[in-house]
């Protein structure tokens, strides 16, 4: 990418050439779902819709005649529309009996052109692409083409899930541990724009506690698959270099050891790495709080010395994936932590290292080096899994304040990571944006 002045013309060019994103579902699928919606049970417009034919009929011969070459397919990768034959009469029962064909679909750009015309763009943003031959060509979504396009355009989407310094050119991070259904804390890293922080805190740079008090209530935890946990009950306050949590007499944090671990985990994920060196637990009368379910818990709890974790994959009920320490298991050395990443300790956290991948770990002055025993070809893994492997190792090393280098990887770079050199230390796991 060039580094000349970014002017309005360039920006408008990029905006005008935004990728077209289409709904992959068929009209039938959409109708089926509407039919299943109780709110539309007697809707006359829907009844009318299901009694009409769905798509224009185009013969197979026409489709085949318009299949372009693979290269054409890639160059003209345009908005597509499925063309299928469909019986005219459709009853509710018939609709539910229909098989949804999502595999080999034929696409017709003539239809697409019509659609574009119907939408009447005054100046087509894709006019340069749609020369007569390209506009007329149809695309056969065979596997080769698809994989080529996926490979080509995978560059569009970042599979990285962590936050890096480069994400913070005009923003700051807000760390928070969100509580999951397994009563564990998942470390999340929210990016807050400087503009937003300046608006929210016009007079003075906020402290970590002020950031927490401002932004934690704005996170819809349940909507994101987490337990409604924040903000903490009771009062949080700063005392010298410590954070004090004045716990209510009756609280949910101390009802069982699992609750205590959940509570401490969220505290560590939220306030470790901040200016606070420890958290002190107090009763409302100012006396030290004693956890009934864990009498040996030190009070205050240090935030600085016990955060050496390794990272695993955690999936919530919705299938959303996170990189997270496994039950806050800590390690004394980065070698131990990285080596342990191959082990499956429970059913909640999934190792990111494939079973057949082995490696050795060496600690050097500049950082830690993981050398895979066999050349690791990342393309043999799903791209997202390969990225998770790399980032989980980076996060693990970062929890020891170290950078990591991965040796004996076939690829020299992956997802923008330069694998020939030491990788950057992530700022935090599980990137989210706070508006």
């Amino acid at each position, binding site marked *: 990418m060039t580094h000349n002045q970014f002017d309005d013309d360039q920006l408008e060019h990029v905006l005008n050439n935004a990728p077209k994103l289409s709904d992959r579902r068929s009209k039938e699928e959409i109708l089926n779902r*509407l039919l299943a919606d109780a709110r539309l049970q007697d809707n006359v417009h829907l009844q009318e819709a299901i009694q009409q034919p769905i798509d224009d009929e185009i013969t197979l011969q026409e489709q085949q005649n318009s299949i372009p070459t693979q290269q054409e397919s890639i160059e*003209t990768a345009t908005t597509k529309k499925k063309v299928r034959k469909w019986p005219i009469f459709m009853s509710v029962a018939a609709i539910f009996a229909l098989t949804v064909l999502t595999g080999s679909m034929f696409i017709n750009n003539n239809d697409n052109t019509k659609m574009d015309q119907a939408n009447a763009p005054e100046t087509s943003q894709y006019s340069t692409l749609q020369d007569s031959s390209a506009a007329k060509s149809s695309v056969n979504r065979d596997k080769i083409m698809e994989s080529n396009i996926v490979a080509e355009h995978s560059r569009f989407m970042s599979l990285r899930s962590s936050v890096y310094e480069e994400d913070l050119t005009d923003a700051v991070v807000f760390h928070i541990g969100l509580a999951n259904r397994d009563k564990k804390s998942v470390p999340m890293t929210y990016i807050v724009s400087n503009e937003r922080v300046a608006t929210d805190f016009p007079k003075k740079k906020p402290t970590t506690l002020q950031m927490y008090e401002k932004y934690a209530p704005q996170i819809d935890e349940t909507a994101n698959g987490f337990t409604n946990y924040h903000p903490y009950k009771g009062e949080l306050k700063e005392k010298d270099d410590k954070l004090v949590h004045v716990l209510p007499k009756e609280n949910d944090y101390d009802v069982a050891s699992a609750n205590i671990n959940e509570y401490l985990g969220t505290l560590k994920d939220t306030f470790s790495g901040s200016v606070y060196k420890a958290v002190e637990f107090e009763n409302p009368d100012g006396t030290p709080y004693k956890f009934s379910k864990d009498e040996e818990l030190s009070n205050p709890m240090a935030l600085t010395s016990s955060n050496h974790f390794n990272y695993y994959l955690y999936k919530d009920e919705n299938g959303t994936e996170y990189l997270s320490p496994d039950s806050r298991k800590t390690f004394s050395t980065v070698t131990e932590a990285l080596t342990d990443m191959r082990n499956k300790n429970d059913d909640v956290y999934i190792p990111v290292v494939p079973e057949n991948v082995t490696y050795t770990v060496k600690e050097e002055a500049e950082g830690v080096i993981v050398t895979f025993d066999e050349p690791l070809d990342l393309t043999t893994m799903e791209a997202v899994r390969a990225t998770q492997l790399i980032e989980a190792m980076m996060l693990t090393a970062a929890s020891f304040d170290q950078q990591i280098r991965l040796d004996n990887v076939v690829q020299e770079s992956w997802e923008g990571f330069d694998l020939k050199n030491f990788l950057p230390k992530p700022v935090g796991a599980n990137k989210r944006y706070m508006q």
Partner: protein
Amino acid sequence: MFHRLYDAYHQDVFQFLIYLVKNRTLAEDLAHEVYVRVLRSYDQFAGNSTEKTWLFAIAKNVAIDHFRKQAVRQKHSLDFFDWETEQLRSTTPSPEDVLQASDEFMQVQSALEHCTGDQKMVIIMRYFQDLSIAETAQILDWTEAKVKTTQHRAIKFLRQQLQQVREQEAKRQ
């Protein structure tokens, strides 16, 4: 009616939603909600606007309701952006140019996350959806002047953001 609206505008409305919420499944859910509202309220459609702007106004309201329900406008980062890669248009002839355009669009997309909700909506409508100023104003129930001002500010903000990114990159190199 359903078929006419679907055939003419479904992909446009879907794209509008997916660019707003950046999650395919969610965009599908919201598109469903749009049709529910359309089918239930079509009889009340007075024809004061075109069907297109009426449909987009409903889509906008559905999206806003979704964000409201979330209490905070939870941003989905790019790693959750379910791109339909096979539907992307290659805008330039050479792979190198495609790559560059991709990087630039990624940066724009990222910068867009820092815009206000109004600015983001206007950019999506005006550029990604190719809607005119008059259409955008009608959908958002704004004056055309407000659309122009918001667009101008959004472009200025995006340009500044992207310029900063370039300067940072230049420094690093």
